[in-house]
């Protein structure tokens, strides 16, 4: 069977990639995708522990995370479309009205 740390490392890598994506991508939708990566990493973690402990709670939680992620993406994209409508661009760099 699989050793737990490997799965966790996989999860960590996915998470780091997601972090990089959140910080480095200009397109808002790219950022959202990176966020999905991070969420998936979390899910992997949850499921890994659930399997390792033999407890179903982790999987249930993972399901809820997936549901929430779906809702979040819906809203996020609605916002992005709205942003695109007002600015003709979804470049995150340009959304800096709160700049001093």
């Amino acid at each position, binding site marked *: 069977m699989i050793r737990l740390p490997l799965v966790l490392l996989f999860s960590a890598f996915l998470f780091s990639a997601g*972090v990089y994506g*959140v*910080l*480095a*991508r200009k397109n808002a939708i790219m*950022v959202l995708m990176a966020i999905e990566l991070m969420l998936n990493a979390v899910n992997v973690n949850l499921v890994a522990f659930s399997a390792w402990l033999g407890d179903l709670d982790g999987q249930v939680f993972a399901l809820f995370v997936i549901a929430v992620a779906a809702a979040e993406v819906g809203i996020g994209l609605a916002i992005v479309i709205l942003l695109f409508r007002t600015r003709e661009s979804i470049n*995150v*760099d340009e*959304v*800096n*009205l*709160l*700049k*001093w």
Partner: protein
Amino acid sequence: MVAALFSEGPVSEAVQIAPNWFVTHAWIVVLLPVISAVLTFFFGKRTPGRGAVYGIVMVGAAFLFSLAVLWHFIKGGALYAPEGIEWFTIGTLKLEIGMLVDGLTAIMLVVVTSVSLCVHVYSLGYMDGDSRFTWFYVVLSLFTAAMLTVIISNNLIQLLVGWEIMGVCSYLLIGHWWEEKENSNAAIKAFITTRIGDVPFMFGIIALIAVTGFTTTNIREIGEIIGLGVVSPLFVSMAAILLFGGTVGKSAQFPLHVWLPDAMAGPTPVSALIHAATMVAAGVYLIGRMFEVFVHAEAWVLTTVSIIAAITALGAALLAVVQNDIKRVLAYSTLSQLAYMIAGLSMGPEGVTAGFFHLFTHAFFKALLFLGAGSLIHAVHSNNMSDMGGLRKKMPITFWTMLFGSLALAGIFPLAGFWSKDELLVVANHTAHTWLFVVFLLTAVITAFYTARMVLLTFFGEYKGHAHPHESPPSMTAPLIFLAICTAGAGLLGAPQLNAVFGQWVFFEEIHEAVFVPWIAVLSTVGAVLGLLAGYALYKDRKAEDPLKGPLGPVWTTLENRYYIDAFYMRAIVYPVRDTWSAGVYWFNQNVLDAVVNGAAGLAKGLGAAVMWFDRNVIDGIVNGSGRTAGKTGNALKYLQTGNVQWYAVGLFVGVLALTIVFIRIV
């Protein structure tokens, strides 16, 4: 022995006559003029006749009342000295309000009320049309009340109160026409000069109160204590001489005589009342009232009094010779006659009767002369005798009454002045005051001389003026006639041939028999006639220039300048005080005192400025500084606010990492 002081009555009288109602209520005499003053003040303007009626009625009533009081003494009654009402007490000193009614009081009451009544009636005519007519009557009544207070008072403080009120009324009345600077100056001069005399007077009062151990101010009690002889003669002498200071001021003796001639700036009725008959007589009255003190003083006190009186008598008489203003003549004459009275008193107990007898007669004829002069002035609208002349045909009543008065002044038998002067001479001879005798005689001659001069210059010759003189209205001539009758009759009261009843009313310690010394009478008459003849000779023809002016030369100039005493006072006292001292004090006030105040203010300002600097720069600096610091910090920190979400995310993750490290490694 105590009972013998202020003797209870004529020794021969076996029956003690009880004081009648008027005597026991003699204080009403004082109250009546007060009522008239108040009524005139409040209702005078609205009353028809502008309020003169109150004064005339009340003073008239007071006069009748005084006659009733005198009646008690005419019958031979004894003095009446009830307990006073306690006013207030300071420690052991008891101040009271009370009255002392003896013969002297009764005589003075009659004199004051009668002359005051005459003046009140006279002023109806004289002050007719004056803008301050009502106020004039208010002050007249007030003055009368004050003088009556002095006369009737049984203690020194009440006397002093009346004394001072008289001074104020004198000031108000002299300055009645204060629009002329001259008049207000004269009023101030009168007030201040009498004030200078009042200072030793007050010290004298304090000394006498000290004699009683500060328990009472009652005159009789003071007299008792001094009479016991327990007080050192030196102390008594000091008290006496201090009291005399008040007399010198009030009765215008040398050296404080300077105010009386100038006081003639007031209306003539005022001069008649205050400066002839009453206020100036108050000084004489004081000596008489406090005679116990003078008698127990050392001899030099009375000698000093005599000397000053003698100087005044002669000096004033000489000054009267050179005056052109008729009122000035009469003023100096008053000075001279007052000196007579005081000199009389200074001769001792015998002189008391003589002195007051002269006061009694002098009041009538001097008031008569003044009112007559007022009548003349009213007719020719000028005070100067050079503007008068030949008025005897045009103003007959005035002429005859003034002639009466003048002859009385000169001392011609049988008018009042003769009797009183004669008595003074008798006493002087009797008490061996020979030099006073000579002075009296000499002064009598000079008096007769200037009297003749006055009469001749005013009534004889030709009238060369521009006014249309006519006889004065009845309101002015009636008093003249009344006073003329009094002049004629008053002297008889003291005539030795007629029992000299006056001496039974006014005496000190015991009645002295008035004696008639023929050679003295002859001598005085001869002297008077000589003076009159000399005057007649020189002045029967009116010349442009006074006939004495040439021969006397420098003497005339000195006399005209009043021995330069006034000038001396101005230069020695008034100018230094007004110009140097006042200026000095003013400089001190402006530069030193104000400098202190301004300095304090400057200090406060400086302190304020310093505090303001501190507040602005330090405290506000802190406040503003903290604001500025916050701003600068914000300004620096704002660069963190990039508006870039990913930048924030970086921060987030870095933070989490840091915390992780912290929690793993450190915690």
